[in-house]
C-alpha cells in the first residue's frame, strides 16, 4: 500500500486517525447538516445522507449561515463529530467551527488535499506537527 505525507498549518492541535470522507463541495452547518446524526442533509450535496461521524472530513470549507459553528458544536455534544477536519479555504465560520468541535484541524497544505486524498483512504493527522499521513485504500 502506498502512503504519502502532506504538511500544512495547524488550525486546532491534536492527533487523530480514521477513514477519509472527501468532498469537493463546501458544507453548510445550519440548514446543511443534522446535528443529531452527523449527516449531511443539503438537498443537492454529493454527501447527502452520509454521516461524517468519526471520519476525517476533507472539504473546501464552510458556507451558509452564521450558525455553522453552533451546529458542529452540537455534533460534538451529541457524539457525532468528525474525527478531524482538513480544509482549503479559511473563513471565520470554519475556524470557529473547528475550534468548538475540538478536533484536530489543518489547512494551507503543500498539496491539494481534495485531490490527493480520496474517500476511504486511511488518514493520520498530527496537527501540532503539521503533518498528514495518507495510506491509500487502492494500490
Amino acid at each position, binding site marked *: 500500500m502506498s502512503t504519502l505525507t502532506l504538511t500544512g498549518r495547524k488550525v486546532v492541535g491534536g492527533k487523530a486517525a480514521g477513514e477519509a470522507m472527501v468532498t469537493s463541495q463546501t458544507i453548510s452547518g445550519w*440548514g446543511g447538516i443534522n*446535528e443529531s446524526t452527523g449527516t449531511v442533509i*443539503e438537498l443537492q450535496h454529493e454527501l447527502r445522507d452520509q454521516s461524517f461521524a468519526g471520519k476525517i472530513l476533507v472539504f473546501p470549507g464552510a458556507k451558509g449561515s452564521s*450558525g455553522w*459553528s453552533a451546529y458542529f*458544536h452540537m455534533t460534538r455534544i451529541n457524539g457525532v463529530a468528525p474525527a478531524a477536519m482538513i480544509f482549503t479555504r479559511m473563513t471565520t465560520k470554519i475556524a470557529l467551527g473547528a475550534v468548538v468541535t475540538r478536533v484536530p484541524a489543518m489547512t494551507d497544505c503543500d498539496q491539494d488535499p481534495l485531490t490527493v486524498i480520496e474517500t476511504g483512504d486511511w488518514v493520520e493527522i498530527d496537527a501540532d506537527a503539521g503533518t498528514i499521513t495518507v495510506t491509500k485504500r487502492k494500490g
Partner: protein
Amino acid sequence: MYLTDYEKSLLNGDQGPAKARAMDLLQRYGEALGAERLVETANVAGAFNASTPSIAPIAAKGFHRVYSELNLDSDDTVDIPHMAVPTCQLITGIDNDNWKLQGVDPELARMQRESEKFLGKRGVNLMATCTPYQVGNVPVLGEHCAWMESSAVIYCNSVLGARTNVEGKESTGAAALTGRIPYWGYHLPENRFGSHLIELDIEVDDMADWGVLGYFIGGEVEENIPVLNGISHQPNLVKLKHFGAAAASSGGVEMYHIPGVTPEARSVAEAFGPKRAVRTIRYGARERLATYERLQNATDRKVDFIMLGCPHASIEQMALIAHMLEGKRIHADVALWVHTPRAIRQIAERSGYCEIIEAAGGVVMSDTCPAISRRMPPGVRVIATDSAKQAHYLPAITKVQGWFGTVSDCINAAVTGEWQGVAG
C-alpha cells in the same frame, strides 16, 4: 497571537472565570484564523437565548450552563456576569405572543421567556430580529462590530461601512463579555476592496428585482466582493436589505460596493482601491430570467402559505402590505404571515396596519421566521414568498415547494389561492 496586558489579565481570571473562558475561546479562535491580535469592539449582535428543543436539555441545567456551553464553549459552568459592551439578541425561534399559532409547546415558550429574563438582566438588548439596524443598532462608518446573521453582516459592512466578519454563537458570546474579537478579515481595511465588477445592462428597481440581482451575484462571486456599476435607480434600505440577504444566501457574500451609494466607494476606482477586478460579469435580461427561474422551486400553483418579511419587514413594507390587503379577504385555504421586528410592529399597530392585515385574515409575527423556527401552519405544501433568501432556504429545510415573486404576486396568491407570478 499577541495579547495586551489587559487581555492577559482577563485570560488569567483577574475578572472572574467567565471572562477567562471568553478570552480562552478568543485566543483559540484567533490562532485558528491566524490573526495577529484582537480588536476592541463595543457592538455585539449574537444568538443567546434558549428557544429550540435541542437546547432544552442544557437549559434544564440552568441558563449559566447554556451560556457557558453554547456561547463560551466552556466545559465548566461559569457564572455569567453583565455584558462588558452593548450587545443585542438577533432573531430567535419563538414569537413570544404568537407561539401557539407557531405550534410551540408551552414549556418551550416559557423557556425562551425565562432565558430572556436572564439575558436582559445581564445587558443583552432583546431586539429579537435579523435586522438590528432597523431598530436602533446602526453602527457608524469604521466601527468594529462582532455580528452574526449573514444578512445583517452584509448590510453592516456594505451599507453602513462598519466592520464585521460573520461571527458565530461562541465568538459573539466571548466578545460580549470582553469587548474583543479577532482582528482578521473584514476588520482590516486592505481586505475591503472590490474583487469582481458587475456591469448592469438592465434596469433594477423594485424590491424583487434587487433580490434577483443579489441571488445572481452571490452565485457568480461566491464569497468575494462585487462592485456594481451602472445602477439605473437609487436603492433604499428595503431594497439593499433584500439584495444583501439574497447575495449572502446564494454565495456567502459579506461585503459589496455600489459606487455613489455605499460609503466606502464614491467611484468604481475607489471601490477597487489598489486592486483590479479579477473578473467582469454582465447582468442582462437573460441572466435575470435564468435567476428568477432558479428561485422557483415549485410546480403546483395552488399555494397554502404566504411568507412575507424576510429579512424582517420595515415599516414602509408593513404599510404597503396593509394597503394591498385593505378590504380584501385571504383565501380560506391560505395562511399569510408577515414578519417584522417587535419595535416596528408597535408602530404598525399604532398606524392601524396590523388591524388591516389581521382583518384580511393575515398574521403579523415578530421575533422569528419560518426558516429559523422551522415552524409553519400545519399541512403546508406550497409556499410563496417575496424573499429570495426564504425561497432559497425554506424548500431545502422544510421540504415544501416554493414560489418567489413580487409582494404584489404574493398578495394576489394569498387572495386567490393560486400562484400567478411571472418573470415580468
